[in-house]
């Protein structure tokens, strides 16, 4: 099909006002003037996102903010399906991408939008950029995936914890070990999980890097200590919250 519309007509792209839909959105869910905020923490597997989010949550709650966490593939509707699909050998790049989108849509409607409406701060452990990066590595059309996520809401802040493949590999090995999917073994680059992990993660990092400017990521050095990353996150989030109109206290 010939389609001359530029992506900004309907897809996820930079330059969208935070808190608004990237594209067509959900026509049945108006979100204008909702008081809540979305803060997304992006970064590849094992970079320390969940540790940082746990610390942020505590810090925000002590200040009286209501906080809701939402995490990739954690929707009630989709998590069992995604686990099952990953366990079988029938997923292809399209169904993989669409299951993720479905998971995100479920959390958007059931968790994120209600929380924004009620004035919560939504801490998102990964956001649509992870899906776009993984799809990009698997050769999915970049315009198509951006339009797909046109129903997403642009976060108020996106932090990207950047790390290099060598540091990442050591970290992952020290904790859970290299897993099938995060090593991109489905891409059948070879039987060696070490080589596959490195080549897959290297490609992912490239995809994230290419999105950093497009979506205005605030890039943090993921190799720094947990505390120094946390201090930087708090400093930037604190500034942002002070600048924006003080959110309604809901707790």
């Amino acid at each position, binding site marked *: 099909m010939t389609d001359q519309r530029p992506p900004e007509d309907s897809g996820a792209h930079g330059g969208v006002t935070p808190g608004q839909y990237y*594209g067509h959105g959900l026509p049945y869910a108006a979100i204008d003037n909702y008081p809540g905020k979305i803060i997304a923490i992006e970064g590849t597997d094992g970079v320390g996102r969940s540790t940082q989010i746990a610390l942020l949550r505590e810090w925000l709650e002590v200040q009286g903010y209501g906080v809701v966490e939402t995490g990739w593939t954690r929707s009630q509707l*989709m998590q069992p399906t995604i686990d099952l699909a990953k366990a079988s050998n029938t997923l292809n790049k399209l169904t993989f991408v669409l299951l993720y989108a479905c998971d995100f849509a479920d959390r958007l409607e059931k968790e994120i939008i209600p929380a924004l409406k009620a004035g919560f701060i939504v801490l998102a452990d990964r956001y649509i950029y992870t899906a776009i990066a993984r799809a990009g590595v698997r050769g999915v059309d970049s315009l198509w995936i951006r339009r797909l996520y046109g129903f997403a809401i642009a976060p108020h802040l996106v932090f990207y914890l950047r790390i290099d493949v060598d540091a990442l590999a050591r970290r992952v090995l020290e904790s859970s070990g290299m897993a099938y999917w995060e090593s991109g073994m489905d891409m059948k680059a070879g039987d060696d999980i070490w080589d596959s992990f490195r080549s897959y993660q290297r490609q992912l990092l490239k995809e994230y890097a290419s999105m950093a400017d497009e979506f205005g990521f605030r890039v943090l050095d993921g190799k720094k200590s947990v505390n120094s990353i946390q201090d930087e996150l708090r400093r930037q989030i604190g500034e942002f919250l002070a600048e924006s109109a003080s959110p309604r206290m809901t707790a």
Partner: protein
Amino acid sequence: MTFSLLHATDFADRLLYKIVPPLKAGMIVLADRYTYTAFARDVARGVHRQWVRDLYGFAVRPDLAVYFRVPIDVSLDRLLARRVKLKFYEAGMDMGWSANYTESFRIFQTKVLDEYDQLVEEFGLQVIEAGSSITDQQRDFRRLVSENLETPKS
């Protein structure tokens, strides 16, 4: 939205396993519903018209698409004669328009049929009036299919 995306996932799976391989083998694929069902049903549920068309941008465009059009009363009579109760989603009960299944079905399917009418023009669907007898419909259907098979494709 999840309803729409789950169906798209199912479609993508069938496309790659059940539709594309036989097409490559030169076979005829008979599809009982195609992307047009999603276009009509999802939009009736409030999903954005262009978004759902973009979503299915990965689909293969069919060589022939036939729409069996039927008035709501006829489809209700047929469904209710066959089984006691309408299904939750086919009656659009998830939309909360009415607590009554038959009433909700009417509201929902009216929206769906309106969407189909737009699709006929947009995608050049061939229409068969499905209120007529099965024999008549089948004759029309066979004529359409024969014509399509005889036409050399560029």
